[in-house]
């Protein structure tokens, strides 16, 4: 057991290190975690083959994109020292060029995957924002500082399975979009129940737009009113009960105690438990 576990661990560790692959891109957004501009962005990963005691001098390798084999990508790879290196230059020109790329050695003996995508919005709020009918709802989206700035932001409202873009210019009284470089806010004024649902914010990059969603829930004011009224009733009942009990008690004491009202709240023989050598007390015997 331990040998194969060790090998698997080794493989995973190596996957994070390097496997040569160079790709060029047109100026625009970069795949994580590389920073573009001058040099050709390179992503390099590696994996190890199982049972690598007998290394063949040649091995075939090819590339796949999104599960489909890339045409004319099959190459024979020479053993260089202890490594097989498979390199290819991919041009990322449009959104279709993004996706999941994998390099395969032999017949599925080793496979390494690269995911090329526009920067994803990291913090997705999973809980809905709750707002009230007639109030203004504010929904916000943020791109992390470590990721590149988007060119602009768009907002969409879910309409069934579709997304409909919100143009704040068209409906100034209803919607307000405030865009800063890495943050965006959508303010929906005068909410109605129909305004509830999923809203999508899209960070627009030259290569594509990444989406994130937030749910807006619009409830009427009666929702919190119900528990509130329940609590008010509970408080009134308890207060009334306590005061009534007190009145009954004091009546009992009044009739039983010869008019000495102070017996209820001042200690006399009944309540006095321990031999009180410890109190400085004036004892009155009348």
């Amino acid at each position, binding site marked *: 057991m331990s040998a194969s576990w060790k090998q698997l661990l080794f493989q995973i560790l190596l996957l994070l290190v390097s496997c040569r692959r160079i790709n060029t891109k047109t100026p625009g957004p970069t795949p994580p975690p590389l920073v573009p501009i001058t040099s050709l962005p390179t992503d390099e990963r590696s994996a190890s083959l199982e049972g690598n005691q007998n290394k063949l001098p040649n091995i075939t390798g090819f590339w796949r994109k999104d599960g489909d084999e890339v045409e004319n990508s099959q190459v024979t790879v020479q053993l260089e020292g202890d490594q097989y290196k498979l390199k290819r230059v991919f041009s990322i020109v449009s959104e279709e060029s993004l996706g999941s790329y994998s390099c395969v050695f032999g017949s599925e003996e080793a496979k390494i995957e690269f995911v090329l995508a526009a920067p994803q919005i990291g913090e997705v709020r999973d809980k809905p924002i*709750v707002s009230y009918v007639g109030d203004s709802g*504010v929904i916000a989206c943020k791109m992390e500082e470590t990721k590149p700035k988007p060119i602009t932001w768009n907002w969409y409202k879910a309409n069934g399975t579709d997304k409909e873009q919100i143009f704040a210019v068209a409906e100034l009284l209803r919607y307000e979009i405030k865009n800063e470089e890495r943050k965006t806010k959508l303010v929906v004024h005068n909410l109605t129940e129909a305004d509830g649902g999923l809203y999508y914010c899209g960070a627009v990059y030259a290569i594509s737009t990444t989406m994130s969603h937030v749910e807006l829930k619009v409830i009427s004011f009666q929702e*919190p009113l119900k528990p509130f009224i329940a609590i008010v009733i509970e408080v009134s009942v*308890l207060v009334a009960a306590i005061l009534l009990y007190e009145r009954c008690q004091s009546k009992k004491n009044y009739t039983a105690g010869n008019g000495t009202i102070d017996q209820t709240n*001042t200690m006399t023989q009944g309540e006095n438990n321990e031999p009180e050598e410890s109190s*400085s007390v004036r*004892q009155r015997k009348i």
Partner: protein
Amino acid sequence: MYVSLCLNRNMSPALANDLGYKPLDGGWGWMVVVGAHISIGFAYSTPKVLSIFFEEIQENLGASYREIAWISSIMLAVMYAGGPVSSVLVSRFGSRPIVILGGLLCGVSMVTASFGNSIVYLYLCIGVIGGCGLSLNLNASLTIISKYFLNKRPLANGLAMAGSPVFLCIMAPVNQYLLQKFGWRGSLFILGGLMLNCCVAGALMRPVVLPRKPSTCAAQKNVEEEPNECNTKQKRSCMNNAKTFLDFTFFKDRGFVIYLIGNILFIFGAYAPIVFLSAYAISQGVEEYSAAYLLSIMGFVDMFVRPGTCLIASSKWIRPRIQYFFGFAMVFNGTCHLLCPLIKSYAFLVTYAVFFGVGFGMVFGLIFECLMDLMGNQRFPSAVGLVTIIECFPMLLGPPAAGLLVDVFGDYKYIFFMCGSVIVAGGVFIFVMNIYNYHMLEKEKPAKVREQNQMTIENQASASA
């Protein structure tokens, strides 16, 4: 008529029973403790748990974090500053109507705040009105405990003060749930309803009925206190109440001044470690969720330590010298803080959180019991008002001063050094000065006994005549 007076050697010299009657020390008194527990619980926990709503309010109203954080600060400041006013009201009207009024004010404040659209509106509603309500609650609850308990008073105080961590632990998840279900507006609305439960607490605070016979009036006269209870002196008692509004004669009392100075030092250093503990833990490499957990541990330990400490304090060895115990508790708390920067691993941080909870609980369990012990039951309401308004300043200055230290030195450990040393200084001051104080009180005791015996002889003579 047989009148006897015996000063017990077991009690501290200052613990003469100046109520004029023997308190219940049980019975309905425990229901009063429940009421005080609820009332004090809301008073101390509300400013802290409101911070759960801040992020949403911030987003909705478009304010900065600093502006929002002022809501809690204003609420705390008004709660403490309202002490003298609430003392006067409690002396005049008794605890029950004041706590009911406090509960209504808090309820109204939260409900009106839920309709707010600007930060200033929230400052007024939650900060000012809410703060006033809480200040009425706090003062009245402490006062009524002193009326119902004498022998078991430390335990009653400890149980009542335990309301603060208990309610913190309850209200935090409740508020989270409300926020998710109803948003911040609905949550404030429902929170207002929940705070109306202070009215239930008030209903439990049955007023103590004092005997008002003219013959007993003379017998009750105590040399030190103004005779407020006498029927014949009603008009003068009103004026006396007004004089005790901000009674600076308290500063002539040695014990009070010692207590006050020690307390100021403690409060200055008490809250900053709580505020910065998570940040410190994160800076030491602890992950965020575990760092927040440290505070929960502290609160949980606090819950049990408060009544536990007071149980120990009510024992016959400690009760007469309770001020020493108080000083020791402060030194313990301060030492924990001083040792904190020396530890690096999470396991040790958890241990620190536990000891912090113990130290914090010990001090806060005893803090008002010691004042009652010093001032006696008659002067306590005005004394506590004066103490809280003075404590307002170190409480508001402490965390920002600590924050300044972080900004200047860039390291959280200096906060712990500062707070630890300030608290230890306060504890040592109380301990040492009380040696002197108890010594002086012992010296003054024979003179007092002679005076009071003189009084009783006079009463006997007038009564039999």
